[in-house]
């Protein structure tokens, strides 16, 4: 399983099940909907992201979390310029 590094400073706000993320470095703003907020917070508030921690997160018991789903999310974050894969 890969490890990811956060490469952008971001600001974000969560309202209900939606979030708006502002990438301070690029100036881009993103709307994220229908998304597990704990994953968003974990990815955007930590410098390094370990997939194992996400999959095994105790907060995830109500969610159907598998590594493919997590991969898809992390790839989205890479496209948005928040993360990069480091191994």
């Amino acid at each position, binding site marked *: 399983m890969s490890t990811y590094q956060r490469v952008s400073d971001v*600001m974000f706000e969560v*309202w209900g099940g*939606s979030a*708006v993320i502002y990438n*301070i470095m690029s100036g881009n703003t993103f709307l*994220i*909907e229908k998304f597990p907020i704990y994953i968003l917070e974990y990815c955007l508030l930590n410098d390094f992201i370990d997939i194992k921690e996400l999959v095994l997160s105790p907060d995830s018991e109500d969610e159907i979390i598998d590594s493919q789903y997590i991969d898809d999310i992390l790839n989205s974050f890479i496209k948005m310029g928040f993360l990069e894969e480091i191994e």
Partner: protein
Amino acid sequence: MSNKKVDIYNELTTSGLIVKVGVFKYRICSPLPILGNSISVLYADYELSEYNDCSGFVDFHVLVKGIGGCFSALSRKAQFFVDDQAPFNALPKQHAPAIIEWGMNWCISSQINSHLIVHAAVIEKNGKAAVLPAPPGSGKSTLTASLIQEGWRLLSDELTIIRLDNYYVSPNPRPVSLKNESIDVIKDKYPNVVFGPISTDTSKGNVCHIKPPKLSVINQHIESPITWVIFPKYQYQSKTYLTEYNKAKALMDIAENSFNYSRLGRQGFIALRNVVDNARCYQFQYSDLDEAIETFDSLGS
């Protein structure tokens, strides 16, 4: 407010007429009589002064003059200048009343970065402001023109100017722009409303501005917190719907309608986040103006 009677035509054709709108001062020069007529009607209640008597900084030096003829009086086209630059193509001279209003909007939307500028009308009642962001054709100005005849204070018809320190709206109550059918709708419903000259066959169709209520002009120094963000949409024969709108989507939509959100960077995001967080956000669909007024009054009461 200045008590001195200003000769508008004379100032426009000589050193310039100073018009103070909200926190901005314009110096307007023009030799075109049609513009003098328009300003005399629409800006009668504003703080006007002569350029030579003006103290302090003038934000925008604007000029509308005839071009394309040997003499200005013979020219068929008029062009807007700000600081001696012409940002737009010349248009038929009879469009001068619309040209000056569009140009004055452009000054703020393209040059001001001390505030967050959003393409939205904004009105106020009981100290609470409702921001109405919407693209052209959504019925925003017709709704605004109607609401300001029904006791709402006009803060702006076109540009919502949001302070970056406390996120209050800084009023910018200029004449309200009406287009095409909306002109007759407002004329029929409010016969006492004062209209400026009509500019026919512009790129937006027929355009006419109405004079803002005197109280909105007198109280243009009173800022207001944003209580509601309402996205209006006129839909022919629609019932009236006011539905709660997701705040995250509302933020994205306001950003889309903002002129300088990107230029402001982090400050812009922080401002919008605070605006949206502290406001109730709605989508509003209507076709009947009376029902629309009722809906807004129930919010404002």
